[in-house]
């Protein structure tokens, strides 16, 4: 059996999501400060939050990588040194960079490991060698690279490789799309992507006998690589990345849990021939997503990788109804409600490990102990204590038959 296992690298759009991802099993998280990343509209981390996040993760043997992966202009670059000094002081585990100027700047200021972002679209051995010579210790490969080629890149360039295993995908080679820049005046490679690839387009092929075609032809299905885990392990891929810093707590938690549990199972048994595989796949269906594809992980992505549907038409049947703020026999389970549910509803509390805890919400009160028959978003409610429920666990409910 292989004794080599990749890390599960989860997205953390804010400090709460960092805690959720780590507690649900992620070995590492990637986060953004309030500048220099590609998720301008995300909460992102203040300096205090970064410091706390690193402490939280390190106490639980998880790593924190900070994204600096915008294609920075000269004026942005001048602000980098102060931030790098801070990241060095709080001992982040790596920075994720896509621009050679940023690589040079970081390498000149600190020994923080440099990971080359997927934005750089590194696709082959020679490109990996270039970035290694520039000072990188890891390459986040382009999503067009197969697992087999990734293994080759790792072996021949002698550098760590990271691959996306789950989440939304750019249809374009990453970093090679400037639709937003030229049509909306928003630099997609500095965090202003307007997601024009998700629009519906009318296509005129200029053939009299052919009608115009309406299609979401530039929209990609979401990546899902659970069944390919053995290939990732076999090729000794160093890190498996889950996309989605803008996504929900439930997404961060579920993905971290599913992929880390699957990896643990493989570590223990040396195979995936388990009924758990279906249960993990079922869990992946319980978060909002577009249809899944393996994209180019095995063979180059074909026509079946196009998500020719309007956004949000593939929403999950499950939604997050809350987050556990406190759980003890004394206080009961205190939930911060995100989506309403009713007295008598069945809800599931997603355990950090193992099966979800199903309960029926027979008895709900507000925090002043007044009975509640229907909860409201942005309120706190209490449920009777149930053993196994812990702070930071997420609560979900099936909303459609």
């Amino acid at each position, binding site marked *: 059996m292989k004794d080599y296992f990749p890390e599960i690298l989860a997205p953390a759009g804010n400090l709460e999501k960092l805690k959720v991802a780590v507690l649900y099993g992620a070995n590492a998280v990637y986060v953004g400060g309030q500048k220099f990343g590609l998720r*301008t*509209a*995300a909460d992102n981390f*203040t300096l*205090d939050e970064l410091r706390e996040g690193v402490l939280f993760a390190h106490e639980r043997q998880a790593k924190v990588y900070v994204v600096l992966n915008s*294609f*920075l202009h*000269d004026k942005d*670059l001048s602000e980098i040194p102060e931030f790098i000094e801070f990241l060095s002081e709080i001992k982040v585990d790596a920075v994720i960079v896509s*621009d*050679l*100027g*940023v*690589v*040079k*700047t970081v390498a000149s200021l600190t020994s923080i490991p440099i990971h080359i972002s997927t934005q750089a679209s*590194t*696709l*082959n*051995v*020679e490109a*990996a060698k270039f970035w290694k010579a520039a000072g990188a210790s890891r390459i986040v490969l*382009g999503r067009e*690279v*197969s697992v087999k080629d990734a293994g080759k*890149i790792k072996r021949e360039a002698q550098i760590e490789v990271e691959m996306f295993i789950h989440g939304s995908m750019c*249809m*374009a080679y990453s*970093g090679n*799309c*400037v*639709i937003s*820049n030229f*049509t909306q*005046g928003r630099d997609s490679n*500095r965090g*202003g992507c307007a997601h*024009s690839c998700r*629009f519906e387009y*009318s*296509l*005129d*092929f200029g*053939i009299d006998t052919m009608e115009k*075609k309406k*299609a979401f*032809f*530039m929209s990609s299905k979401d990546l899902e690589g659970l069944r390919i885990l053995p290939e990732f392990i076999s090729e000794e891929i160093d890190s498996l990345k889950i996309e989605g810093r803008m996504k929900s707590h439930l997404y961060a938690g579920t993905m971290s849990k599913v992929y880390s549990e699957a990896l643990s199972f493989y570590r223990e048994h040396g195979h995936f021939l388990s009924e758990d595989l279906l249960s993990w796949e079922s869990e992946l269906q319980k978060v909002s997503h577009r249809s899944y594809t393996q994209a180019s992980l095995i063979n*180059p*992505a*074909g*026509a079946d990788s*196009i998500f020719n549907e309007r956004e949000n038409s593939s929403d999950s049947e499950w939604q997050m109804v809350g987050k556990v703020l*406190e759980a003890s026999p004394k206080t009961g389970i205190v939930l*911060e409600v995100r989506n309403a549910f009713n007295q008598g509803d069945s809800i599931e509390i997603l355990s950090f490990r193992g099966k979800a805890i199903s309960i029926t919400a027979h008895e709900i009160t507000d*925090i*002043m*102990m007044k009975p509640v028959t229907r909860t409201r978003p*942005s*309120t706190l409610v209490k449920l009777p204590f149930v053993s196994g429920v812990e702070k930071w666990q997420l609560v979900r409910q099936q909303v459609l038959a």
Partner: protein
Amino acid sequence: MKFVTYAQNLHDLSRIKNLGITEVILGHIDFSRFGKLSDDDFMNLAKRSKELNLRVIFEWDILMTEDKFHQLQNKIFDLLPQAEALRVQDPGAFEWCLKNTNHPLHFIAENGNHNLLALQGWIEHAQGRLERIVLSLELPKNKIQEYCEQLKIPCELLGLGRILLFYTPRQLLAPLHDDRVSYNDELVAIGESEESPHKGFPLIENRHGTFMFHIKEFCVLEYAQELEDYGLSSLRLDLRWTDFSVIDVIMSYLKKEVNFEDLKNTYPQDLMKGFYLTNKTDVLFPKLKNHRLQNRQGDYVGEVIEAEKGSHLAIHIKNERGLKKSDRLRVIHPKGDEFFINIYSLRNLALEDVELVPNDSVAIIQFANGVWVKSHVFYV
């Protein structure tokens, strides 16, 4: 300043021979995104170019996964003897050419590379092998001037041609086309989106993937003199999707024989300057999020997570100091209103009166008019 263009056939070559153009870029079908030349076509065109004293630039601008890279790298040795320089974009091609060829290199830095350090980095890595660097269309003129002055090698810019917006290796048009004849065919279409004010994006699908262009073409020819004064060494004319005869008017304009209006009226597509005068593609970013809620530094206590009118506020404490009963609070509503609160009731989630609620716990204090969920709380 040199003028460079693409030649796709012998007719193109014969048309440019007396126009003052000194270099031609030849696009081989396997190596160039929009190249159509077979091995024989390439050899013939290269040979004819040399007879016309035109310098031949071999374009290798596709991005390549390892598999494809492996297939192509040996083939290039058959073609390179006919070329005098190589231009590449993929860092892998750049690295490979440095090690395996002796040709002068042009690096296409059109994708990102919007800072001097990055551009200098490519040049330094090439250790004298880089003959030219191709600058991004997104650079404003003050940056073009600065880079032409600061970089130690000649710089090139697109002078006129299509603006590539999107490049994927996936074939996106074929699944929608009724009559796809063979894999190697090129498909073209015009795309319109109901969610964009722009109509008529040209699209191409070929063996290298699918490409989308802007509805207008990029043109900075009216600033040619200014660019020459900045020290730009080469201006590229990309007429691959236009009747090539228009090059006569373009060169006449560059020789000041006709004015810019004549050129604009003759040129079949609408033209734009892109970001040549200024690039403000980051000015909208502050509007993408509520900045009142971004300040969570220093005196930040936490966030109001429940506000029950007439009863209480629940605050999620996010500061190592925790919240003491003696603390005075400043609260910022998401809409920007500011409130000050003296705490006279402080309880934990067990509803016990306490003097301190620690970090990462929930504090319950008395309700304050105007304060709502998501309000941010600070120590005064």
